[in-house]
């Protein structure tokens, strides 16, 4: 059975889906984190990520350094993507769309944080509109699945973990860097996505991760 080393920064960032996949896969894995602020200074053009898959004797087998490739590989290898090609397509499409939106939202936020109040207000308006479009499509998906808290069927999938990670980025990471963004994000959350977050957090496959790193879904209660 292979083991894994995941190298990234000590933040949610883009790495949470990988952490959830590794945990849910019940494989042996460790994380080597660097400091977020130092990483931003060292890598102004994008913080690198590395996943090393090791053989059973501990020797490195393969090294991945692209988030999308890492996630799809883990999801396929450990059964969090279905066998049906069309259903795989749908989950991968949702994920790629989410990645594009995440980059847009983060660029928008970066523009707004250092700007005048007028520009910040404009940026926040754009942020909310993009977010609403995304949330609308995900609510539709969850309702089509009977609002069970899962995107497909009744078990944890790649899409569930990706959506949860997206929510955690804005609610947890932005709680320190931009409380306004975190607040606006939380206000926009429909009950269907709040339920997804709670469902993911209570999934037995992720107990080890949630116990160590905490939960956030309770922010939607009350």
């Amino acid at each position: 059975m292979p083991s894994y080393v995941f190298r990234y920064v000590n933040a949610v960032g883009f790495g949470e889906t990988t952490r959830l996949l590794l945990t849910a896969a019940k494989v042996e894995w460790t994380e080597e984190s660097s400091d977020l602020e130092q990483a931003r200074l060292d890598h102004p053009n994008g913080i690198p990520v590395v996943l090393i898959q090791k053989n059973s004797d501990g020797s490195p087998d393969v090294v991945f350094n692209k988030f999308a490739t890492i996630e799809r590989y883990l999801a396929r290898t450990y059964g969090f993507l279905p066998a049906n090609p069309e259903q795989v397509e749908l989950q991968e499409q949702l994920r790629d769309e989410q990645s594009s939106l995440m980059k847009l939202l983060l660029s928008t936020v970066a523009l707004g944080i250092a700007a005048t109040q007028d520009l910040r207000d404009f940026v926040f308006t754009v942020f909310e509109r993009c977010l609403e479009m995304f949330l609308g499509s995900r609510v539709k998906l969850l309702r089509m699945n009977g609002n069970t808290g899962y995107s497909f069927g009744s078990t944890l999938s790649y899409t569930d973990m990706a959506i949860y990670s997206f929510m955690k980025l804005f609610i947890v990471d932005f709680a320190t860097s931009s409380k306004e963004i975190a607040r606006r994000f939380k206000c926009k959350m429909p009950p269907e996505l709040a339920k997804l977050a709670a469902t993911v957090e209570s999934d037995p496959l992720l107990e080890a991760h949630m116990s160590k790193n905490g939960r956030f879904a309770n922010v939607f209660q009350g």
Partner: protein
Amino acid sequence: MSRYTLRYFNIQGLCEALRLLLTASGVDWTEEHPEWPREKPNQPLGHLPVLVVSNADGKGELALSETLVIERYIAREYGLLPTDNLAAARQEQLRDQLHDVWSTHMEYMHSTGERSAELVTKFEQDAECLVGMHVAALQRNGNNGHYFGDALSYVDLAAYAFFKFFSNAGPRSLEAKIGLLDYTHIPEMSKLMAVVEASRSLEPYFAAEKVNGARLATRFK
């Protein structure tokens, strides 16, 4: 047997690798160029490309969006990506890297001021890294013009499309740095380009290009 309709603009843009995949797969496919932006609301996610997969009687079954998702679907369906997860991931990682550098270039084309300068630096670093990694991969495979094995594969086609794009990236391109991706100065990549162009399964693609000329790289004029 499924039939495919690719909706995109009549440029290389995001879709040249996909055109090569569809041709190499030997499937029945056509291309539409929707009136834009008039047709934007009629697309599944409001953008192009879209690949419509129809069954034998021509009725639409599935409409796929997101370029790389479409590519992987076709590549897997028609054997241009291996079934082994790890082998497939090795190809996908190389392909994702090509897409990232292409995306940086496209962002540069739309940027101004300080952001433009940042993107030039990013492009330079990422392009140098890309060439190093891809040359190493081709060398590990014996420099036979393929990244893996001795048959045409997904990443071979994606790399061909990528280097073809940068051989004529059009106005507003990163002219100072485009030379980093000039395949005529990279022997291993020149070999790949020649091998792809000699591939029998791609004869219809190159025959059409001979008649119509190569598509423009982008919509910028």
